[in-house]
């Protein structure tokens, strides 16, 4: 189910790549899953870990920086995993990594809506 979910998600924005069936057979799933898990952990640290412990990383600026970090991590994950599996970099891979950057930011935003209610200092972040 996860395989078809991530295939749908990435093919929606990147299109299919008949030259490299590896994307549909595993890259989309592993990159998507890792991106989801990474943003989940970052969100938990932001809202439940630090957000309940101290008022040191909790403002809108902090949130924006964290979401940019998630985006960069998303880009890095897609780029490095796809390059590792395929052995070369082409325009499709760059497009895939670029859109994974946005997906990571979106995942973080969605997790923010969920976890901010469990926070103290970030309870009203980003809004």
């Amino acid at each position: 189910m996860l395989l078809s979910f991530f295939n749908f998600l990435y093919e929606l924005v990147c299109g299919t790549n008949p030259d490299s069936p590896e994307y549909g057979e595993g890259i989309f799933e592993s990159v998507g899953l890792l991106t989801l898990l990474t943003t989940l952990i970052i969100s938990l640290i932001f809202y439940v870990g630090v957000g309940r412990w101290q008022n040191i990383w909790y403002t809108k600026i902090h949130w924006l920086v964290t979401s940019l970090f998630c985006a960069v991590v998303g880009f890095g994950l897609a780029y490095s995993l796809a390059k590792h599996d395929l052995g070369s970099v082409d325009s499709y891979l760059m497009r895939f990594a670029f859109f994974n950057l946005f997906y990571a930011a979106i995942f973080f935003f969605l997790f923010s809506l969920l976890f901010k209610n469990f926070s103290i200092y970030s309870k009203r972040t980003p809004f």
Partner: protein
Amino acid sequence: MRVFIFGIGGTGSRVLRSLTMLLASGVKFNYPDLTIIPIVIDTDAHNGDTSRTRDLLRGYHTIRNHFVSKNATSQSDSFFNTQIRSFNRLDSTLSDAADLDVQFNFQNQENTFANFINHRELTEDNKDVMELFYNDSMGSHRELHLDLTVGFKGNPNIGSVVFNGLAGSQQFKNLEASFTNNDRIFIISSIFGGTGASGFPTLVKLIRNSTNENLKRCQIGAITVMPYFNVESDDKSAINSAMFDTKTKAALAFYASDTHINSVNALYYLADSAQSGTLPNVEGGKDQVNNSHVIELIAATSIVDFINKSNTELEVPQCFEFGAEGGENPFTISQFSNHTKEKCIRPLVKMAYAAKIATDLISDLSSETFYGSKELNIAGELGIPNEYKKLLKFFQEFKKWSSEEMTSKDNGRSFNSFNFDQEKNLNFLVHGKSIKTGFLNSGLTAKNIAKRLTRIEVAEPKDLSVPEKYLNTLYKTAEECVGELGQMP
């Protein structure tokens, strides 16, 4: 239990001001159903001290109505916990939303003493007798032609005549009509002036001669404040510090033999021999605005002591003096006894932290969670801008009362209490004891306070109103600050 507290004259008003600060700081009483009914008695209706106290009491009343739970009692953990009520709205079924009325009015007070006693209507023989008793000159030391609108100018012989007229006032009749056997009376006066020295024995006499048996037999507490300040020497003024001790001795001699005074259940005496400073010599009117004084704070603690006494403790009339651990000048918190520190000073310290946070720190914490529009809505003044401004004004007044005024050298004995000048740091707020800091602990910095405010605020029950949440958050944060301070100095 209702306690009617009469503040007579300038000192009465100033002690009531100190009592208001104690009540605002959340001092607790043994009787949860306690209601304080403050009454200011002063013929000098425009007196600066009197109007300042009246405004403060009205501020307390408004703040309590908007920021404190309806179920709060004098034993609740809250600022402004004790209920105060207007003497002309004693019926508990009446709404208490109107502005607090605290001033007893004298009939025919906008007049000279001669007119007050209908001097013109007297027979020639009686006029001669009156002129033997009272100076009938029109000079600076006039008695018979004294203008009563600025008080009795240190003439208790005139004051006692005027005060007897209080019995005929509608307000005193209302008091007589509504007084129950569960009520008490406390009278604050000074002994070295005119208004308090004459008002106290006359008021006790009116109470003990009342037709209402509950009032006649009620438990009365009183504090009579002996000289504790000097005023500048001024030949044109009727007030002369050199006469304070003589007047005190004369009044004490009278009190000692007066059966009504001797029936007072708890009579507190207070004086301060350290009178080296000098206050401006103002006979009365709006310009008479004296600095607060530690003696007035101590006098206010006597009211707390009286209210907390059981009926059994008050059966036999007793006299009390105030005991401190030391008598240095300037006076400091460390010189109060442990009992006073725990009962009255700790709440004041708590209030000092809250006042500093509310007036100096919160405005800079706009990025914090508690500040936002979905939490306390500080930028929107909690949704009740007028009342919020009144609360901040009250906190500013507290800072002025407890620090700027009390530490004044003009007071004779100054009181080093709180240091509100530190920019954004609460580590040195309490004189004589600072918050411990270290390499990993910077103490009560603005950041640390912000952390506490948010943690406390988000944990408040969701069904509380925003103003209640705000004051609760301030109270609990201040309580944590006091916890960090540890034992009082």
